[in-house]
């Protein structure tokens, strides 16, 4: 490792003018980029079969859409069409709901919890068996680096099924003093940022509690859901228990509005979440919403700065920043701001942006053209608001939708780039003097999904954690997920929890 460190700064002063650091190594700068040229290390995708045309999965069969309309799924790294998939209309949604209703009335909740659990265990195992295929597909369809889809998305998806499988015959222990009953048919609408993982978050607890499902994946990333449908078939899951209808917003709206759906679970933007909540007004449909966020990531001056830098990078650049719980607002205590920002810029220089299938890639492709344009708009908004933009000097591929990792300094709390969710690799940086100011700024958005705290002082973690209104509090870490750990927001970040024992609540009644 020693030859990856260069002493390219004078020892007696730092480049950013901050006081001379006391750590013997803090004037050393990691400079991987100029020392190491990474050869391309692409994951081979030759064994992955993506059908040219996918149909809906209804009642255990792949069926063509009634209206015969298809949409195209595009690889955002190459802008090439990967496949066509069915566009669901009200007729398709209706037949999916009917299949789910039939399965609910005839088979699924009538099975013992143990048998239901065994089906879900089978599904978990089959995801593990096809893990590499799913990971590659996820990266091709959604643009995320293979390292993430291989090490995070797919293993976690399997883990969620494994976790909830075990609940199916133990539900009477989950709710003290209550006997849980299933709800019926669940309409589930998931986003494009973690296609298979969000599917697992939705389907696993629904099945464990005896519900049946009509799920719609996002229109830019439908393929892994359709491959998951193959697993449903292969696992022998009774027909109609899981139905997958593809399409865009209109298809989702048909699910939300269908009179025979008992529950809606939605993950996506706050804007759409509010529309769904309004649509469901006055009905008896239950719903859970996992919506947007603008996560504050607070670095106190006693924080281990190098760890914090890694955490900040992970918080905002993980999955191209397409993460509802991303730490997109850095709040750093004044005394370490200059040092930290310099370290952050240095670290950003080492990030590799490019081919999602390359195992060295840190930041893959922006998921779609629409999202790419949205991020570009926000960059302009930030500049127009007077913020200072810094981007790493990396090269980005000519084709495909790529965005350099970006930070904005000189921003204020009321700026749009501070208040609104960008959903891209864009970080705003504000400073604070006192913990009270940090808390005030952290809480000052309509959201409340996740936040980060970096400090070496335990009591400060708990005090700050108590005061910040968000569903997840990552202290000295960020963007960690686990099937046993509940996830979900306060305020306009949604309602209800997914994951863990708490994730069973939205799928039962007493």
């Amino acid at each position: 490792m020693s030859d990856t460190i260069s002493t390219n700064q004078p020892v007696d002063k730092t480049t950013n003018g901050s006081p001379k650091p006391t750590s013997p190594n803090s004037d050393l700068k990691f400079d991987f980029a100029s020392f190491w040229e990474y050869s391309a290390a692409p994951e081979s995708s030759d064994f992955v079969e993506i059908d040219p045309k996918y149909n809906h999965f209804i009642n255990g069969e792949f069926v063509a859409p009634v209206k015969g309309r298809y949409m195209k799924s595009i690889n955002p790294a190459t802008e090439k069409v990967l496949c066509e998939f069915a566009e669901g209309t009200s007729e398709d949604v209706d037949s999916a709901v009917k299949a789910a209703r039939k399965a609910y009335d005839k088979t699924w909740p009538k099975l013992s919890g143990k048998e239901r659990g065994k089906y879900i265990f089978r599904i978990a195992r089959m995801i593990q068996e096809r893990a590499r295929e799913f990971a590659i597909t996820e990266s091709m369809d959604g643009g995320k680096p293979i390292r993430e889809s291989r090490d995070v998305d797919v293993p976690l998806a399997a883990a969620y099924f494994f976790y909830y499988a075990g609940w199916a015959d133990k539900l009477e222990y989950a709710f003290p003093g209550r006997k849980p009953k299933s709800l019926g048919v669940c309409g589930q609408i998931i986003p494009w940022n973690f296609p298979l993982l969000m599917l697992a978050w939705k389907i696993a607890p629904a099945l464990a509690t005896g519900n049946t499902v009509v799920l719609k994946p996002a229109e830019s990333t439908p393929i892994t859901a359709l491959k998951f449908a193959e697993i449903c078939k292969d696992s022998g899951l009774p027909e109609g228990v899981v139905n997958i209808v593809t399409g865009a917003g209109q298809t989702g709206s048909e699910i939300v509005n269908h009179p025979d759906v008992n529950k809606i679970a939605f993950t996506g933007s706050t804007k759409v979440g509010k529309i769904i909540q309004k649509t469901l007004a006055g009905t008896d449909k239950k719903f859970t919403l996992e919506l947007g966020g603008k996560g504050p990531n607070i670095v106190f001056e006693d924080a281990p700065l190098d760890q914090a830098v890694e955490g900040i990078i992970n918080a905002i650049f993980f999955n191209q920043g397409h993460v509802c719980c991303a730490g997109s607002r850095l709040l750093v205590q004044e005394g370490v701001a200059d040092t930290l920002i310099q370290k952050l810029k240095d670290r950003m220089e080492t990030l590799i942006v490019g081919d999602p299938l390359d195992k060295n890639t840190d930041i893959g492709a922006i998921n779609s053209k629409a999202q790419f344009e949205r991020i570009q708009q926000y960059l302009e908004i930030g500049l127009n608001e007077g913020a200072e933009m810094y981007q790493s000097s990396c090269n980005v591929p000519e084709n495909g939708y790529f965005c350099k990792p970006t930070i904005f300094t000189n921003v204020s709390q009321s700026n749009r780039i501070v208040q609104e969710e960008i959903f891209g690799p864009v970080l705003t940086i504000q400073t604070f003097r006192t913990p009270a100011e940090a808390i005030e700024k952290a809480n000052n958005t309509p959201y409340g999904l996740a936040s980060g705290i970096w400090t070496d002082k335990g009591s400060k973690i708990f005090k700050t954690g108590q005061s910040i209104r968000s569903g997840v509090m990552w202290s000295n870490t960020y963007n960690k997920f686990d099937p046993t750990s509940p996830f979900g927001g306060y305020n306009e970040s949604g309602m209800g929890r997914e994951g863990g024992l708490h994730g069973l609540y939205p799928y039962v009644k007493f």
Partner: protein
Amino acid sequence: MAERLEVLKTYKTYVGGKFPRSESDRTYRVTNPKGTHIANACRCTRKDLRDAVVAARTAFGDWSNRSAYNRGQVLYRIAEMLEGRKEQFVKELELAGVKEKDARVEVHTAIDRLIYFAGWTDKISQVFGTVNPVASAHFNFSSPEATGVVGIIAPDKNPLLSAISMIAPVIASGNTCIIVSSETNPLPAVSFGEVLHASDVPGGVINILTGYRSEMVDSLSSHKDVNAIFNSIEEPETRKLIDENASISVKRTSHYSPDDWFAVEHENPYLVLEFMETKTTWHPVGF
């Protein structure tokens, strides 16, 4: 000796620990079932509601940060104070046409209900919190905490018991609230404010308004600084209005319209959980 002329009470509201009249100076007639005048109650406005939300929000930080033990003691203190004044409440219910025996049962049940929820304050996170065995090297725990400011829309039926049955689970966890009292008989709710005032409940934790529901439900449910609505009105149009307004700021809504407020089922921790958020904290484990 001439019979003594009774001193009648002016019924006001209870907001931020004070007893203001409606800013509008409007009142409406409260009568018993025979139509006889009992009192004039404040006919609160949107402005009164907004003031009450400010009071509730201001009180939230302190109340939610109190120890669970302390909140339990305060709830217990409310019950103590109510016990001492129960004759007043029995009479007030009788005024509105409730039989003495029934009034007494209502007051007793209300007191006991407060005791029930007083006991939950320091148990709810033990029973419903979890330590989560995550697969990575992290310590991870989830604990419920208060949602924030809750708007309560109380029914006309059993005006004391229903109000207390809705308030107690909401404030037990650290929420603060604004209650739109029974429209037909708001008097016990207003008098309950006097009990609260003598019970160590910080001002602003419970704010009691009276008036026409039709003039307040819309503003309460659309107010962006209200985090949740606890509604007892069964009417479909009211429910729909509340739900639609709630979507403006992703407000939580809970509709709860039991026929029998005396039933023991209303004493359960799930009512407390209804107005709580689960927060999950992660920390790495290592040297």
